[in-house]
């Protein structure tokens, strides 16, 4: 009788433990998902939407309760200019306005601000095609303006080339551009560039993993399949190097990628993932060169070549070596896209 009473309690306890464990799995899953790609740094502010957001002084008729009197004038009309800054030209010292203000229609524009690598070139793509190239300063800061836009959904992509000519992966942002607004996207941190000195080595050999990022940040280098996270420091020009001892890894294929973390909230997305192989034999490393016409870019021409060979066994376009040009090859090409 006593045993019978204990059975349901035991089942409840057991199942509650299971539930807690599954909830923990859920949380871990989510943390991993966030780590795998979501950027926590980007802010999008729209000037012209009538809402004065955090970094705007005003927007349309939203003055955040500010008035001419708040600026120390006797009265007059405070207005908001096209850049969402206060225009005090119609404020008065008691008599006439201090200047003549006029309002014109805002041009539809998108502004990108962020960090790449010191003195690097940043290529900006609009719906997959190159729209402009800008340079970062010695602190790795860059700013770019895209004009001549019509209203609609756009996918913008940004990638940079470091001091050694290594390209970053594309950092993409998809959002709606509204007519007569200035959309400012700030806090864009391009992921570090990454390269390795060997793709096939023996267990215990040192693998040099290196690249460039913003100056003086800590770079987290992930070795997958070993699930190892190593830390290294970028120097004053953003160059980083990790001498990784492969003793801890099993024979077989491995992947490495890197990202930097400025603080608890600000971090980059992951860099390109690079493959290497420990031990004898093993499969070929995935052929990742989607630049089919060898012009140094992965663009519409390469897409045309892939399209032409779609469904065939063309060796050049069969990037994952499964003997057919199919969906994974298209996906790999889009990963290495430069526009």
């Amino acid at each position: 009788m006593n045993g019978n009473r204990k059975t349901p309690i035991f089942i409840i306890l057991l199942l509650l433990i299971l539930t807690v464990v599954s909830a923990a799995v859920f949380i871990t899953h989510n943390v991993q998902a966030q780590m795998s790609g979501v950027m926590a740094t980007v802010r999008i502010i729209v000037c012209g939407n009538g809402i004065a957001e955090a970094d705007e002084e005003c927007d349309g008729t939203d003055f955040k309760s500010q008035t001419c009197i708040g600026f120390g004038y006797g009265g007059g009309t405070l207005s908001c200019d096209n850049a969402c800054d206060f225009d005090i030209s119609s404020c008065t010292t008691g008599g006439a306005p201090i200047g003549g203000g006029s309002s014109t229609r805002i041009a539809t524009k998108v502004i990108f601000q962020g960090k790449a690598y010191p003195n690097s070139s940043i290529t900006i793509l609009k719906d997959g095609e190159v729209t402009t190239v800008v340079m970062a300063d010695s602190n790795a800061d860059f700013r770019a303006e895209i004009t001549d836009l019509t209203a609609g959904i756009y996918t913008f992509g940004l990638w940079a080339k470091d001091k050694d000519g290594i390209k970053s992966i594309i950092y993409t942002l998809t959002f709606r551009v509204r007519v007569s607004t200035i959309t400012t996207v700030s806090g864009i941190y391009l992921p570090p560039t990454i390269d390795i000195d060997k793709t096939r080595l023996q267990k215990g050999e040192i693998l040099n993993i290196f690249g460039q990022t913003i100056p003086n940040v800590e770079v987290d280098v992930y070795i997958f399949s070993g699930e190892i996270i190593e830390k290294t420091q970028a120097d004053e020009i953003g160059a980083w190097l990790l001498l990784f001892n492969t003793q801890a890894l099993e024979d077989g294929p491995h992947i490495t990628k890197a990202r930097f973390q400025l603080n608890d909230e600000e971090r980059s997305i992951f860099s390109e993932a690079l493959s290497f192989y420990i031990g004898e034999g093993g499969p070929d490393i995935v052929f990742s060169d989607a630049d089919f016409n060898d012009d140094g870019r992965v663009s519409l021409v390469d897409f045309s070549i892939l399209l032409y060979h779609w469904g065939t066994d063309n060796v050049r376009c069969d990037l994952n070596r499964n003997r057919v040009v199919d969906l994974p090859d298209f996906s790999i090409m889009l990963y290495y896209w430069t526009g």
Partner: protein
Amino acid sequence: MIKKYFSKNNLSKFVFLFVLIGVSISLGAKAAVLYLEPAEEEYHREDVFIVEVRLDSEEEYINTTKVNLTFSKEVLEVRDFSQGNSILTLWLEEPSFSNQAGTISFIGGIPGGYLGEDGSLGKIIFKAKKEGKGEIQFQEDSQVLLNDGFGTEAELKKQGAALNILAEKLEAPKDEWLGELKRDNTPPEPFEIKIHQDSAIFEGKHFIIFSTTDKQTGIDYYEVKESERDWKKAKSPYLLEDQTLKSIIKVKAVDKAGNEIIAEYVPLKKSFPYWIIILILAGVGIVWWIIQKLRYVKK
């Protein structure tokens, strides 16, 4: 009361359900979702309405989507497919549909991938042709691939739509698509024609590539014209008829509302080879000088 609900059997069922929900939440956390908007709605016979195919990437960058849909062909009829405002910029297989088979399919990609919860892949324009339940379902072979450089297939949930088609209304049927067409007076985005030659395709012959988007109703078709030849419907890449590259090439992009934009490629005219004249004059000068020299020697 508690005893009533927590009888041995019910208790097991309750706890099993509790755990099942917990486990299913945990397992399903990372799957991308292909879904339709609206998922449930009522329309009347003869209505023309829009069903949007959307992607929720669920915290992963997705760069490739393969969509195969089936629909109740007795109840619904596809009128058109719009790529307007789609997040897909490269179409490996353009949208196609068959009202006989009740199928819609397309393959598209986003360079660098898409991260978001309501990315529009395209709009299907349906006409309700008969009363009944109009179901639209994603087929099993629909796929989305991660932007990870390896072409990894992402876990995927598929959520179709169940539409209720009622009897025809007394008033005029609604036409959501016509409204969009009337509002669209903006031509497609400006674009460029690029000429290429590659041994890998068209047996090394010259071809052109072109691509643009239309942010309203979407691109309907392209046409190509080489000098005095007629306009021809075309797709990129397009093999040029005039391989001498002397023709002016025009490509016209037309959106679903009929707005158009034309890109033009004018071949560079070779400048007159003035160096040949200089060479000839120099040659004549040298010959004349030699003749003069010979005359002088003879004298």
